[in-house]
């Protein structure tokens, strides 16, 4: 093709920022040497296995472990009775939910929920021993979708969930854990002024993050009361805190050592095996490793919710959107906490709509408790909004991209949840879409269509810490607390290198454990390059100040006469143009020991000032009208990243998120039977995209700097997943004239759509 792919529309040029060095942990990862959570070995290590509920909803009547008591192969057995007594005054409901999710007490609320665990010298022995545990259940009726849970079914999942509000039209409010509402203007009046309105209902299925490395945890509870946990996690400090709460011990008695992590996408914050491995270790006196199988991972760790969304949008003949309303019911899973809040925030946040009302419901169902998944809640929401916008454009006979340009949120627009959008790259992204080769290349093959969609995600920040130690050879050891899930050691190190006039290769970054580095919130919300990058930037400034004062001391001049330029310390009355003294970074580093001792730069930040991400995608899809199979033939994602510190890894985020969005759109779903059992808990039947299903994913990096970061970084990890389902649905409509309201759009859904349009 005669166009340039993977373009970067760049504004500023730096020396290191914006270049593409080889990542620091690269060689370890291409040679198999990098140690991931499950790779850890240590003396006396034994293996834990978890007995899980075979029922989706049941009361536990009794658990009998007597047959294991004198079994020589078994090192320890644990049930909920091994958790500490709950003290009066501990926030009981939420703590009980946390505890029950790692090991159930009175009820099981999803198939796969842990009820007991054993440890043995071999994992096979542990697994076999599970069959000797006898659990008596009273089976209850399960309910597995948000829609059923509040509109159709009267099963009550939590007796203690006290929903005080009453809702018209909702039959079973007792499964609603919380209700969130945003409103702007007057929707009633707004809709009265509209010439066109479209109202639709959407159903989406539960999907999983699908990281390739299953959850794992290895724990050793030492005789001095100190508990060490080795695992792959996105949030070592979050794991430390939650485990401490569950075990009712001080955070300071736990050390979490983050090993390399094989993907997370939001799913690796919550503890699962950790407290259980800890209890098994306490009982056996040995380190205990628990690694989940793939089916355990799919059935028992947090997926992202299936949802029911009802939406209405109206516009006038000029193409101005005047009113919108939405009801979102998201599956929380077994315990409260779906991302319906961010779904409700994002559903109209890409637009400037004067009148709107949004109601979001967090609904408990008999499925694993949901966890975050890349822009949690926003993909479900955008599927509804962006397909309805497409339909409105068609009804108004306006190009759908022009309609989006006309109504896009921009700096100064009020976000539905209250804050005003600061500088965001919405118009820049839309312009780049309009000018892109892909958008301007006609398609006229039969059954092929093009769709677009846009998305907004607010991104996250959070506290972060970083220290920089100078080595005598002029290099730097950088220590941080953010697990590196996709190249962030390098994007963080590059920011320190830029400040210090060094090369990325002069900095050696390490991710330290919770005893060794200051508090750092987890690797999530697209935050690491922003917040830990900021900490590294500040630490580099701190280091620079300290080194300048050392240079001043060596030269015996006042510090005001010292400057640092292009990797050199200089001094003199008129130091910029006529320096009297020179010293390279390395020359100073070599002398540190003899001139006052080693120097460390350090910084902690509160990580505020994240910049929202705006993106769009263009997709061509080819539909086989005989079988309903849809092939993605071309895909382009255009995203405002603020500033791409390492463009290759930014593109990687855009491409990876896009393909997860494609998987969500096309194939992925939890297939549940009427007992509430997942029927496809393996990677053959839970079908994620393979290399053969996907074309090259073209990227356009748009850079509208975030004014609240020194290099303009916004988060880049999440927004890319939001658009594909809607864009593909719009493409399918262009291809074969059917509008699909349900995910996934697998051959069955597509054929049903085609058949019903022929009726």
């Amino acid at each position: 093709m005669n166009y340039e792919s993977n373009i970067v529309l760049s504004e500023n040029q730096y020396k290191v920022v914006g270049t593409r060095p080889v990542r620091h942990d690269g060689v370890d990862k291409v040679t198999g040497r990098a140690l991931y959570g499950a790779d850890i070995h240590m003396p006396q290590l034994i293996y834990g296995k978890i007995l899980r509920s075979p029922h989706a909803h049941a009361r536990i009547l009794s658990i009998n472990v007597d047959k294991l008591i004198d079994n020589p192969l078994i090192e320890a057995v644990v049930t909920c009775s091994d958790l500490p007594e709950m003290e009066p005054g501990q926030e009981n409901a939420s703590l009980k939910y946390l505890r029950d999710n790692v090991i159930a007490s009175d009820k099981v609320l999803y198939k796969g929920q842990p009820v007991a665990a054993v440890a043995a010298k071999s994992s096979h022995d542990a697994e076999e021993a599970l069959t000797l545990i006898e659990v008596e259940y009273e089976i209850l009726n399960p309910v597995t979708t948000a829609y059923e849970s509040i509109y159709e079914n009267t099963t009550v999942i939590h007796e203690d969930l006290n929903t005080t509000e009453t809702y018209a039209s909702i039959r079973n409010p007792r499964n609603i854990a919380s209700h969130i509402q945003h409103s702007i203007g007057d929707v009633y009046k707004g809709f009265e002024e509209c010439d066109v309105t479209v109202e639709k209902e959407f159903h989406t299925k539960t999907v999983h993050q699908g990281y390739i490395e299953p959850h794992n945890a290895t724990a050793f509870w030492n005789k001095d009361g100190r508990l060490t946990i080795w695992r792959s996690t996105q949030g070592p400090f979050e794991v430390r805190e939650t485990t401490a709460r569950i075990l009712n011990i001080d955070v300071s008695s736990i050390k979490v050592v983050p090993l390399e992590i094989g993907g997370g996408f939001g799913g690796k914050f919550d503890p699962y095996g950790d407290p259980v491995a800890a209890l098994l270790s306490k009982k056996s006196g040995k380190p205990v490793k628990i690694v989940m199988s793939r089916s355990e991972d799919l059935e028992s760790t947090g997926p992202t919710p299936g949802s029911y969304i009802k939406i209405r949008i109206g516009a006038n003949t000029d193409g101005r959107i005047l009113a919108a309303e939405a009801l979102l019911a998201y599956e929380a899973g077994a315990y409260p906490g779906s991302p319906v809040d961010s779904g409700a925030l994002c559903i109209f946040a890409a637009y400037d709509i004067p009148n709107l009302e949004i109601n979001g419901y967090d609904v408990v169902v008999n499925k694993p408790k949901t966890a975050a998944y890349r822009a949690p809640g926003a993909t479900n929401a955008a599927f509804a909004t962006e397909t309805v916008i497409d339909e409105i454009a068609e009804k108004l006979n306006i190009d759908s991209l022009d309609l989006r340009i006309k109504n896009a949120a921009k700096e100064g627009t009020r976000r539905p949840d209250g804050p005003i959008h600061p500088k965001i790259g919405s118009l820049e992204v839309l312009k780049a879409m309009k000018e892109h080769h892909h958008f301007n290349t006609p398609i006229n093959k039969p059954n092929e269509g093009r769709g677009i969609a846009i998305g907004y995600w607010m991104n996250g920040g959070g506290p972060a810490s970083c220290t920089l130690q100078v080595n005598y050879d002029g290099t730097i050891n950088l220590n941080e607390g953010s697990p590196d899930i996709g190249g962030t050691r390098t994007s963080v190190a590059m920011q320190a290198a830029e400040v210090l006039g060094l090369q990325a290769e002069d900095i050696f970054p390490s991710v330290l454990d919770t005893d060794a580095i200051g508090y750092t919130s987890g690797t999530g919300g697209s935050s690491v390059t922003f917040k830990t990058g900021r900490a590294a930037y500040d630490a580099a400034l701190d280091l620079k100040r300290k080194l300048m004062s050392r240079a001043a001391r060596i030269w015996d001049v006042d510090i005001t006469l010292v400057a640092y330029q292009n990797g050199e310390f200089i001094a003199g009355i008129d130091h910029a143009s006529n320096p009297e003294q020179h010293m390279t970074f390395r020359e100073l580093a070599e002398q540190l020991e003899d001139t006052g001792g080693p120097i460390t730069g350090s910084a902690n930040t509160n990580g505020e000032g994240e910049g929202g991400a705006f993106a769009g995608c263009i997709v061509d899809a080819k539909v086989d009208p005989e079988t309903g199979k849809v092939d993605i033939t071309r895909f382009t994602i255009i995203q405002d990243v603020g500033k791409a510190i390492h463009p290759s890894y930014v593109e990687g985020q855009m491409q990876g998120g896009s393909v997860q969005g494609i998987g969500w759109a096309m194939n992925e779903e939890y297939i549940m039977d009427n007992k509430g059992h997942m029927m496809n808990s393996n990677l053959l039947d839970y079908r994620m995209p393979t290399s053969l299903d996907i074309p090259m994913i073209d990227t356009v990096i748009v850079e509208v700097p975030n004014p609240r970061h020194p290099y303009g970084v916004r988060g880049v990890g999440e927004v890319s997943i939001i658009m594909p389902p809607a864009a593909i649905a719009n493409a399918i409509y262009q291809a074969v004239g059917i509008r699909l309201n349900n995910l996934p759009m697998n051959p069955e859904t597509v054929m049903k759509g085609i058949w019903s349009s022929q009726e």
Partner: protein
Amino acid sequence: MADKIHVQSNINGYDVDFLCESRQSLLEVLRDVLNLTGSKEGCNDGNCGACTVTMDGRIVESCCILGVEAEGKEIITIEGVASADSLHPVQQAFLEEAALQCGICTPGFIVSAKNLLEREPDADEERIRFWLAGNLCRCTGYDKIVRAVLKAGEVMRKG
């Protein structure tokens, strides 16, 4: 405790003797007995490719092979791909093309891709996508992996 069987094979160029239970997979033997943890377990049922190794020159999923089947066989794992002093062109291309994010799938992809390029150094995009369809990557969307393999092929063709 189950009885153990004595197995002799050649792993990454070294003759290796090990004891394993008849129920242990080759992947378990590599990881838990021989401490070669570069091969990863993503599914344990042949669907993710993270455990890919070669056995007598053919790619196999080591989670679907028993440890005892390694008797008399030559096994190459990710730990045996680089030479003493340099990375294999596929490894080098993965680094340069940023073809890994979390890296958990990387050992499997590199073993598979190397095996393809040794047979067909001029494999094109479609052939590469077809060959690697047994390896799942959830992070990259495959784009940079495919580009890295194309680039490695170019390097290998030049010798």
